[in-house]
């Protein structure tokens, strides 16, 4: 167990960033997101949640795949994938860490997504326990322990100090390399963890009933009439999918540059009318169908195909960010099971 005084965190960041790239919650113009640490940035480590999730680091919003260079009538094909240098992702919360597991199931399954894999392998994750979980948090429902978030290194703020506990080889190596840290005592951390667990148990959504969401109920759930009302106010904007740590859909697009064509992939959203557009059109023609797709995928299709693992980590971003206050909690409460009443 290592520790550092909270006021000295900047030294820590500087030291990490001196050796490899460091990504952590940074506030720019009122919004906190994972960004690269550079001199002068405003680190916002205490903020419970970044707007965009940490998945951005492995599966960025937009990413080059290949290039076609043209000159006259000739075309040259260039591999645009980059080999990432080792980097540290600092301040990841339990829910976001859990989301990596879910994304791994998608991107690391055959056929392996090489671009994702390279970045997953290059990272050292430092998680941070949630001292002040919010009413919109329901990670516990999906088996996340926000007081014990895991990762390569697990950090906990106790009073005016931050404690670090290495959990993997990578984590240990990172901690060992840092000279600004001093040895710490685990007892204070244990106390804090207990306090956090108590806070979590008092949150409003921690006892959501998911019992109805299982493979054999698929058709029944699909045909539930409540979808119509649940989705009524949905604007189809896609905010929920873009802030969601587990949404993994992307589109592959071409951009014509002055020298040829860049092929890149970028996030897509099942909320969009252009999503999975086929020869004719999007098979899901109205917003109710698109809305249903998103939640059925997270709560029914995904667990059916992945040993019961849900496609949601209970981070509550959609609860906070939906312009019209629609969210997965409302879906679970309506369709999840009797104990939600």
């Amino acid at each position: 167990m290592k520790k550092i005084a909270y006021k000295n965190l900047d030294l820590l960041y500087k030291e990490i960033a001196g050796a490899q790239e460091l990504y952590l919650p940074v506030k720019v113009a009122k919004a906190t997101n994972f960004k690269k640490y550079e001199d002068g940035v405003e680190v916002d480590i205490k903020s419970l949640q970044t707007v965009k999730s940490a998945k951005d680091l492995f599966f960025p919003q937009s990413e080059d795949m290949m290039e076609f260079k043209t000159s006259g009538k000739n075309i040259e094909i260039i591999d645009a994938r980059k080999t990432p240098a080792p980097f540290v992702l600092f301040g990841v919360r339990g829910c976001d860490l859990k989301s990596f597991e879910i994304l791994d199931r998608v991107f690391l399954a055959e056929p392996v997504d090489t671009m994702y894999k390279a970045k997953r392998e290059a990272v050292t994750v430092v998680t941070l326990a949630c001292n002040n979980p919010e009413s919109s948090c329901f990670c516990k429902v999906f088996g996340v322990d926000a007081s014990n978030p895991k990762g390569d290194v697990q950090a906990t703020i106790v009073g005016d100090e931050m404690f670090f506990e290495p959990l993997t080889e990578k984590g240990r190596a990172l901690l060992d390399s840092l000279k600004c840290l001093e040895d710490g005592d685990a007892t204070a951390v244990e106390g804090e963890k207990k306090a956090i667990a108590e806070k979590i148990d008092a949150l409003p959504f921690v006892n959501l009933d998911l019992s109805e969401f299982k493979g054999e109920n698929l058709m029944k759930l699909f045909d539930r009439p409540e979808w119509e009302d649940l989705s009524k106010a949905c604007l189809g904007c896609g905010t929920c999918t873009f802030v969601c740590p587990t949404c993994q859909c992307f589109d592959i697009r071409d951009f014509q540059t002055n020298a040829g064509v860049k092929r890149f992939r970028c996030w897509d959203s099942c909320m969009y009318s252009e999503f999975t557009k086929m020869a004719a059109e999007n098979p899901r023609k109205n917003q109710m169908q698109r809305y249903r797709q998103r939640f059925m995928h997270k709560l029914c299709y995904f667990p059916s195909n992945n040993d019961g693992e849900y496609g949601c980590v209970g981070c509550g971003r959609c609860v906070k960010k939906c312009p019209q206050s629609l969210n997965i909690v409302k879906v679970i409460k309506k369709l999840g099971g009797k104990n939600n009443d």
Partner: protein
Amino acid sequence: MQRIETAMIEKAKALLSSGEVTRVLGWKKGELGYDVEPCVFKSEESLKDFCYNVFCGANLSKYLVEESKKEGKILVFLKPCDSYSFNQLIKEHRINKENVYTVGVECQGKVDPYKLKENGIEMVDSAVETVDTVTVKGKEFKKEEIILGKCLTCTKKPLSYDDIISFNEKREPVLDRFETVKKLEAMTADERYAFWKDQLSNCIRCNACRNVCPACTCTKCVFDNDNSGIASKANSDSFEEKLFHIIRAFHVAGRCTDCGECSRVCPQHIPLHLLNRKFISDIDRLYGEYQAGEDTDSKGPLTNYTTGDVDPSDVFGGNN
């Protein structure tokens, strides 16, 4: 203020039972108090979940584009700002007015849940509202401390309605709506560039601003249309952040009623309304004051002209 909600429910019940309307567009209670959602109620019974309170900030007018196509009349409750959007949509033939029964409702500013959170309040069991204050969890706030940005500058008065439910005079706006625009104009070009670079770099192109906007009702947006030449799904370069927001603001210029929904819904809190307000302030300054949505038949400033209009070289309002 509670009696507004009561009066609204009574009105809705009466119209539903008389058969004059078949549906009611309003707000439904949420799980955490502040997360009320727009909802179409189809029966008197379902109105038990109906609510109208300080959290009903969403603009309902856009839902009518689809709802007014359906059979039967729908009752809609319009806040003053919603009613301007409604009028503008009527002007653009996007709403079938015959299928809508409009009831104007009093609004003295709606609460911004983020501002509540900043004040340490997360869940809301009940909120007691007066014209100038809101009391949540026993704590009394002045409106200007916790209402949405768009409400701080609101001067909108109720427009023509079939019926109106209003008991108090509208409170005066706290701020001049062009104050921030003026501040930006007074900056140097470098400062302005830095400001917008920071703001727009946060844009995740979730399209919330566009999809909530009552002026953005295109069947297919140019940014979704692969044939348009500017379609894109994510910002792959900082240029695309600017392109999206400039074109979007331009497309709604002269049609934007300044309802402020774009900034309310932005997950990154980008003050997008400042782009629209820049156009509004330029239009007011250069072509005479114009409030989109104030009527249903005037020509918009961009589909109009006078022979003596100012030249593009002489339009700059701010510093260089």
